[in-house]
């Protein structure tokens, strides 16, 4: 089973619980690793669950692997949501996993920028999914 297949059930569970946020997973070829596609709202309620999910999934990844957060379908982010992203970033750094963000909508970027965190993250244009 690929990593995305292993984590999929948990992601679905989370999507049911935090009814305004859903996550789907994909294994990536370039860069090699895992992509998380978020859609909906990353607000105070859903960001806690999202954060736990990612933090639990990180130990299953290889060191130096890449973790991409695809935010192209994200509609809303609260400051707590931004906080959860930074927590995930810290945890990834500690494990040597390279975290990047792809497809961020402008208004979401504005909020991350307003909080002063755009310099902390690496943004990429696109990625290749493993077929």
């Amino acid at each position, binding site marked *: 089973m690929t990593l995305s297949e292993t984590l999929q059930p948990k992601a679905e569970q989370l999507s049911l619980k935090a009814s305004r946020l859903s996550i789907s997973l994909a294994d990536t070829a370039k860069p090699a690793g895992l992509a998380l596609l978020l859609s909906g*709202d990353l*607000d*105070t309620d859903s960001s806690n669950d999202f954060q736990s999910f990612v933090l639990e999934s990180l130990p299953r990844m290889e060191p130096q692997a890449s973790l991409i957060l695809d935010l192209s379908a994200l*509609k*809303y982010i*609260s*400051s*707590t949501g*931004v*906080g959860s992203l*930074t*927590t995930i*970033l*810290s*945890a990834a*750094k*500690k494990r*040597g996993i390279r975290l990047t963000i792809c497809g961020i909508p402008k*208004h979401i970027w*504005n*909020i991350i920028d*307003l*909080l*002063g*965190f755009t310099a*902390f993250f690496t943004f990429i244009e696109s990625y290749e999914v493993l077929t």
Partner: protein
Amino acid sequence: MTNNHENDGVEARARIVAADIALDVGGNLDDVAAYAAAATKAGQAVSADSWLLAYRTEPEQWFSLTKEREEPAGLATQYVKAMVDVAKGLSQNFRGPHANWTSAIGVTIGEEDDPSAVLILGKHRLLFGPEELSLLRRVTELLEPVITARQTRASNELLREHSEKALRRNEERLRTFFEESRDMIYMANADDVVASINNAGLRLFGTTDRFEVLGRPFSRWVFSPEDRRHFLSKIQHDGFVVDHEIILARLDGTKLFCIETAQAVRDSEGKVIEIQGIIRDISERIAMERDIWAMNVELAESNERLKTSHRRLLQQEKLASIGQLAAGLAHEINNPLGFLKSNHTTLHGFLATLHEAWNKACTLDPEAHRHIASDLDLEYVFSEIDSLVAESDDGFGRIMGIVKNLRSFARIDEHEPLGDYDLEQGLESSLVMARNEIKYVAEVETEFAGVPKVPAVGGSINQVLLNILVNAAQAIASQKREGLGRILVRTSMIEDSVICEIEDNGPGVPEEVKERLFDPFFTTKPAGKGTGLGLAISYDIIVNRHRGSLIVSDSTLGGALFRIELPLHPDREGGEDLNLL
């Protein structure tokens, strides 16, 4: 003594009098005027000289009206009691303020023992007859409903006034609550146009002009209009939002992080007609949280850098302790090696002397010496002496080379200063020195970019280059191949560093070996061929002495790629301070 005929007469008269008084009591006159009118007419009906009316507006607060003076005055309750006695028929006398009657009759209004009013009528000289008393009583009976209606009307009026006052007070309270609340309270219509807003709201928006806000869309004040649309769809769907984050954008450009709780008001068909919300400024809390998040990320990063530094420090310590061992070894070996070499040289000299002596002796008695020579195979002995000495010299040379390596490993030459080093020139001379190892094994291609000089200890860098070139040649030589292998030597520049890459098309370096390649005494060569110190020393020279980097990876040619990076400004290195020994 009454008889029916007389009763009918009283009844008829009573009705007439009552009807007349009813007009006053039931009409629009105020209480005092109505009472006075009623009392006057009642008095006239029974031919009284005077009347006294006592009434109360509150439980123990009695007032009186008299014929002579129709303005109300306070009345002591003891007189009220006396009046009640007259009304009950217990007395016909009354002595009180404005009244001193020997003949008095009276009636109570309301309950006899707890009346709301008492009327007594008096005559100065004459007496009241029973007919007059009956008349008075009957008139009172007939008027009862009218009086009750009047009193009810009065109490209703009072109640209404109370209610209105209470309502106004409540309105005031709510208004104060709305206006003085420290949180923004606002109301907007279904299109999110602001209909009302309190003072705190104006303060949060950063304006003093209410009309800057009223009648305009709320989204005007929101940093991200998409977020406001998101809020509106949520409130449409759920009917309310709780603790929804909203970022306000004030007129002066500053942004405020706030939190909003709001509800939608719907009409009977369920359509939203109004949005009512409370917004609170949480900028301070967000600022604190934000700082904590930033600190955590920076901590994680520092942690990583520390780990890397730590690894390098450990490596250094390993090297340092091995270096001490090596220094000790070198010293121990050097001493005996010294006199071995010198003795060897002396021996060689002595052997030469002996050979000369023998040759001279041969000339004295050739025949005898020829015998000895062939018995002892002296020809062979003399011919072997030179090659044996040469081999031993070679051996000594090699031991000295090893000692030199050990010493350089112990960094006995650390105090050599950095000079201006031309990398490309160094490569040229190293290629020359390695020519013997390379020439039958591989072809060398160079791509020199013309890089500037760097601060370095030239001899040490050349030693590194030589080491890597020789390794490349030996790797290629270890393979069975047709024709010559390839060695590529390239220089380039990035930012603040000069890069040298040496790659070959040999067998390459397996992954598990890459990890240990720079470890001291690690070697993949068979025993006797190399000490395994070369790359450890090279690593030490490049990384520790020159603050550069030395990395091995896979070459696209199929073999190994060694990449040396030397900074142009080694003193200006940011990040870790590698505290050397």
